């Protein structure tokens, strides 16, 4: 990411204006758009409440204004250089105009992924294992992810957990928590239903666009289990 953020709207000159307008229209046509964007007083309350604005060259106000003004050039710049800094905490929902800049950014991120923009591919670098875990197992983080090389900044206790993981999991009274590879014990039938949801709602197509390697791995895992369960499902 370049600093400072270029807000002139003249970045990405090589991208046709029609393409930028198409992406802005995709944002505006999302069913949630009317709930998250009304206009903008330019009061800055969202910025005052925003954690990301304190540490990044990031402003929920600029994003709300750019979309409210339908400035396709600037919206395209923000979709590429800014939206992934948002914390998605929704502190900006304090907006007196009843906007939700955080909700708007959720939509903009989704459009970036749907269109396989370079910004989405870059943002997801290093994140593949998390997507793999949630989509293939139904729980996002698992006990065995607590490894010292993954969390060096969390100190020596991560070593201790990793070293004692299997025993410490068996020392948990709830029967569902004895697992190490998933957060809790999940029925096979439940996982199959989750795979069918990903298939029926187009999520696998989104993954294919931004990370074909991850898509192939997920297809291998899912098709095998679905086939075992008697489903004839193909991910194209």
């Amino acid at each position, binding site marked *: 990411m370049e600093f400072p953020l270029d807000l002139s709207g003249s970045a990405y000159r090589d991208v046709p204006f029609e393409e930028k307008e198409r992406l802005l229209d995709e944002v505006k046509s999302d*069913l*949630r758009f009317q*709930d998250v964007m009304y206009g903008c007083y330019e009061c800055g309350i969202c910025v005052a409440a925003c*954690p990301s604005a*304190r*540490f*990044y060259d990031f402003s929920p106000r600029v994003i709300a204004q750019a979309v409210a003004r339908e400035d396709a050039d600037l919206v395209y710049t923000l979709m590429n250089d800014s939206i992934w800094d948002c*914390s*998605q*905490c*929704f*502190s900006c*929902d304090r907006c007196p105009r009843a906007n939700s800049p955080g909700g708007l950014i959720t939509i903009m*991120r*989704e459009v970036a*992924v749907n269109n396989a923009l370079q910004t989405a591919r870059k*943002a997801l670098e*290093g*994140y593949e294992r*998390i*997507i793999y875990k*949630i989509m293939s197992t*139904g*729980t*996002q*983080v698992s*006990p065995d992810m*607590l490894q010292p090389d993954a969390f060096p*900044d*969390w*100190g020596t*206790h991560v070593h201790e*957990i990793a070293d004692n993981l299997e025993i*410490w*999991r*068996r*020392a*948990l*009274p*709830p*029967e*569902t*928590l*004895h697992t190490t590879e998933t*957060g*809790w014990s*999940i*029925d096979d*039938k*439940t996982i199959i239903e*989750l795979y*069918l*949801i*990903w298939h*029926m*709602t*187009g*999520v696998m197509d*989104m*993954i294919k666009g931004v990370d074909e390697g991850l898509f192939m791995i997920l297809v291998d895992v899912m098709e095998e289990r679905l086939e075992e369960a008697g489903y004839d499902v193909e991910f194209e």
Partner: protein
Amino acid sequence: MSDFIPLDVINGGARGRKFEWDTARAPTEDYHDAVLQLEKEGEWEVQRVPEPYIEVNTRYGRVKRIPIERTWHHKSCGQCGHIPGYSTSIYWLNRKLGLDYLDPKDQTSCTAWNYYASATSNPAAQASVAMRNFAAAAETDYFPIIHCGTSFGHYKEVRHELIHHHELRRKVRDVLSRLGKKLVMPEEIVHYSEWVHVMRHRFAELQTIDMSHITATVHPACHYHKLEAEDAIYDPEIYGAQRTAVITGTLQAIGVNVADYSSWYDCCGFGFRHILVSRDFSRSFAVQRKIEVMKEEVNPDVTVTHDTGCVTTLDQSQFAGQAHDRKVGIPVMSDSQMAALAMGAHPYKVLQLHWHNTNNKPFLEKLGIDQAQKWAEFEAACDKLKSGEKKYLTWEDADA
């Protein structure tokens, strides 16, 4: 310790102002009306809150029903995976009161952590995941209670979207139908900390550890009280109904002195994607905007919150802060862990504090708990697992 802001100032007491609800002036629609109207129109079934329940008020004074038992525990990835004493304490509280609950295996994550982090999903998928879990709960006739603040907030978003967008309802109903499931919306979407809140006086009746000399700060979770903000518990007796009452109400019921700090509204720094792949931001925010502010303004014995990401970020970030000589060193716990501790739960067999990072031994010692003895008891229990004498630690072992 004497110069922090006393809570009665925030409560309005110092100015003689008494807050009163006026639901007629609520700026939002009442979701109850919409949920029940769609049931009348045959759009979905509504799973009623089972009796007995306790009624509380939400942000604009509307009434919310919180079930006492027959609860279906919608678990949290981060709690179960990395801070398992959090959920263990919730179950322990239920068991201590002899309440009927279900810990299901027919439950997936809400997948919202990934959604807010990577956007690799869409409204239809997110709503289908939510409604699959709700349908699974309804099939058991137990009522869903949500452990994670983000699951709670996201499911409220899903409810809003399904209420207002018939095309989305149609799509999700079709997905559920192909899974052999009905579209069932719970009458209320309930966060576990709301259950803790309404049960707080019963916990206090069973309290065995005095906490009147303990000072705590409270961090309300963003996705609890900012997402679909109306549906969170408020109480005129707590912050004059100007902040959510959960956590604070529980701590006050067990005698803890709750102290205010200026950055209470700030998030913890979790950031969803940041905590996994851009942790420099999470560490900096948690230490500089939360922990150091609490330390300078209050110097509490503990800080208490009610969400997975908040416990994780506030706790784990302090290690790096300590390495840089920042003002850190505040143990972090959930309200369920604090309530269980007050009722005599084992700090390692139940609260599982060895999964936490920041040093909590001085806090336990201040409560009169011999933490070295307790750790020795836990290690002895683990030795039985290692030797093969036992395969798992049971609830009976946890209370032995």
